[in-house]
């Protein structure tokens, strides 16, 4: 048993991803309280360039093997289970990403450590982790403890500042011997998205629509408003899934992260996956018929109204 905080490093194409830095920053603060260490666990092939960016960690545990050149859920789990068992950390932090979801639940089942999912806050009370979890698409917060005082948390991206985990310096690296691998899932290729007609990450004004728009024909009214504002239309996941606008216009966890000067959210309830992609916008104005829509928790201004009525009124107002 230790009071260490383990962070699983997620990396792709030779770069450590932002959610990992968020977790490292938080782990560092928590380890200072527990008296343990913030330990980054990196699985990869030729990990030195990755390790060089993990200065926020007290220590790095590295598995450096060609088998880990690319992500494979089965191999990751095979390598991670013995590490977590051996170290018995106070807490394991994993980003709530695809790979994070792959390994966190499996780790929990294999090690018997409890798991708190959709975490947006992690603190310590009496040395034991207390986790705030976002349930029901952000409509309920749950505060949970691990029954035996230690466990795993999958953390929603955007919960902690990225900068706090981006310290310079080279922590000591502990390299593990030939890892356990499991080749039942094999990486084949990384496929980049098709380029879109509009790059929503570069627009200063985004008029973003969600399910609340109702019919596809109504998008025309939204386009008119975007034109009147000199911006572009972006969408939440359901509209991209329906093919109403290309995937390149999608904001959120599986879409793009945007930071416009104005993000006008129309009929978007604000599921955590969506908030992940837009909470950094300078000015967020949300219009939704549901007064309890989570989008209002990140908005600077809100209106409980029908989005089509407001869109048309605002287009008229801007024209006149």
């Amino acid at each position: 048993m230790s009071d260490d905080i383990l962070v699983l490093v997620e990396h792709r194409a030779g770069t450590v991803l932002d959610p990992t830095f968020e977790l490292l920053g938080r782990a560092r603060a928590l380890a200072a309280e527990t008296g343990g260490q913030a330990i980054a666990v990196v699985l990869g092939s030729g990990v030195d360039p990755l390790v060089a960016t993990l200065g926020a960690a007290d220590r790095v545990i590295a598995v450096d093997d060609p088998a880990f050149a690319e992500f494979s859920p089965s191999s990751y789990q095979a390598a991670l289970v013995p590490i977590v068992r051996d170290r018995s950390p106070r807490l394991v932090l994993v980003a709530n990403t695809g790979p994070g979801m792959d390994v966190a639940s499996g780790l929990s089942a294999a090690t018997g450590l409890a798991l708190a999912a959709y975490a947006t806050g992690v603190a310590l009370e009496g040395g034991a982790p207390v986790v705030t979890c976002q349930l029901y698409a952000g409509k309920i917060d749950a505060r949970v403890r691990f029954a035996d005082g230690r466990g795993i948390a999958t953390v929603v991206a955007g919960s902690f500042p990225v900068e706090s985990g981006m310290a310079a310096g080279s922590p000591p690296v502990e390299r593990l011997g030939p890892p356990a691998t499991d080749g039942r899932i094999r990486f084949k290729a990384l496929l980049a998205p098709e380029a879109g007609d509009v790059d929503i990450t570069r627009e200063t004004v985004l008029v973003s629509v969600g399910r609340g728009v109702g019919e596809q024909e109504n998008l025309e009214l939204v386009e008119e408003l975007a034109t009147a504002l000199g911006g572009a239309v972006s969408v939440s996941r359901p509209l991209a899934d329906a093919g109403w606008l290309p995937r390149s216009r999608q904001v959120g966890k599986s879409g793009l992260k945007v930071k416009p000067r104005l993000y006008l959210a129309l009929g978007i309830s604000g599921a955590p996956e969506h908030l992940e992609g837009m909470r950094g916008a300078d000015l967020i104005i949300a219009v939704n018929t549901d007064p309890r829509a989570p989008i209002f928790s990140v908005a600077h201004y809100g209106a409980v109204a029908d989005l089509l009525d407001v869109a048309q009124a605002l287009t008229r107002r801007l024209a006149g």
Partner: protein
Amino acid sequence: MEFIVLLKQVPDLAEELEIDADGTDLARDWLSYVTSEWDEYALEEALQLRDQAGGSVTCLALDTGSVDELLATCLARGADRVVKVGSFERQPASHVAAAAFAAALRDMPHHLVLTGVQAIDDLDGQVGPLVATLLDLPHVSVVTHIAVGPDGRTATVHQEYAGGVVAELEVDLPATLGVQTSRETPRYAPVSRVRQLMKTMEVGSVEVSADGGAGLVIEAMSVPEVSATAEMIAGSPDAIAERIAAILAERGIGKAAVR
């Protein structure tokens, strides 16, 4: 090919959620339930894959006393068999659900086990990877594309990352997959057909012993103060538009500021 789909019901978010008197759970007396959105995608994918590769689709749900409509809907959409697993007063934690599904699957042929990548109430983790670990099957989450290989021994899947990037992975079967979305919108099942099937359908059942728990202690649940930070604008659509225009003009945002 034997396709298995694991489904569950979750509270309908169209209705207002409230916390019970203890402050540690939803007030469930008046809740209405719907099938978890991602499980619907998993079912649609299973039906599509069966139609391409042949075989059968078996849908499993934990018996919480209220899953007949869910299972009848699966049949109405084209599932070959439906099975109730165990006996529960209500939907249990993911760890308990996974243990029950895993116990049922040990005696049931399965090549590809599909379930939703997540559910809105997965406080203790996602069922797919939990089941996979208990059965020692490989598992991929956030799957947006599935193709079964010609020999039926592998599947090629896409795992979705941020920014629309996807990884193509090849998985040995049997495997479990957490489905993010289906190639087509889940098919419609006429309500009349579902009602009829609820009276006539044959439902398999599997007894399982469900012990253990999630290992979590819920200290409190709360409804976040959603508009604590937002300044709310009241009034007619025109009044709201007027105020938004003023806010934008003040900050020099949009074409209005240029004019």
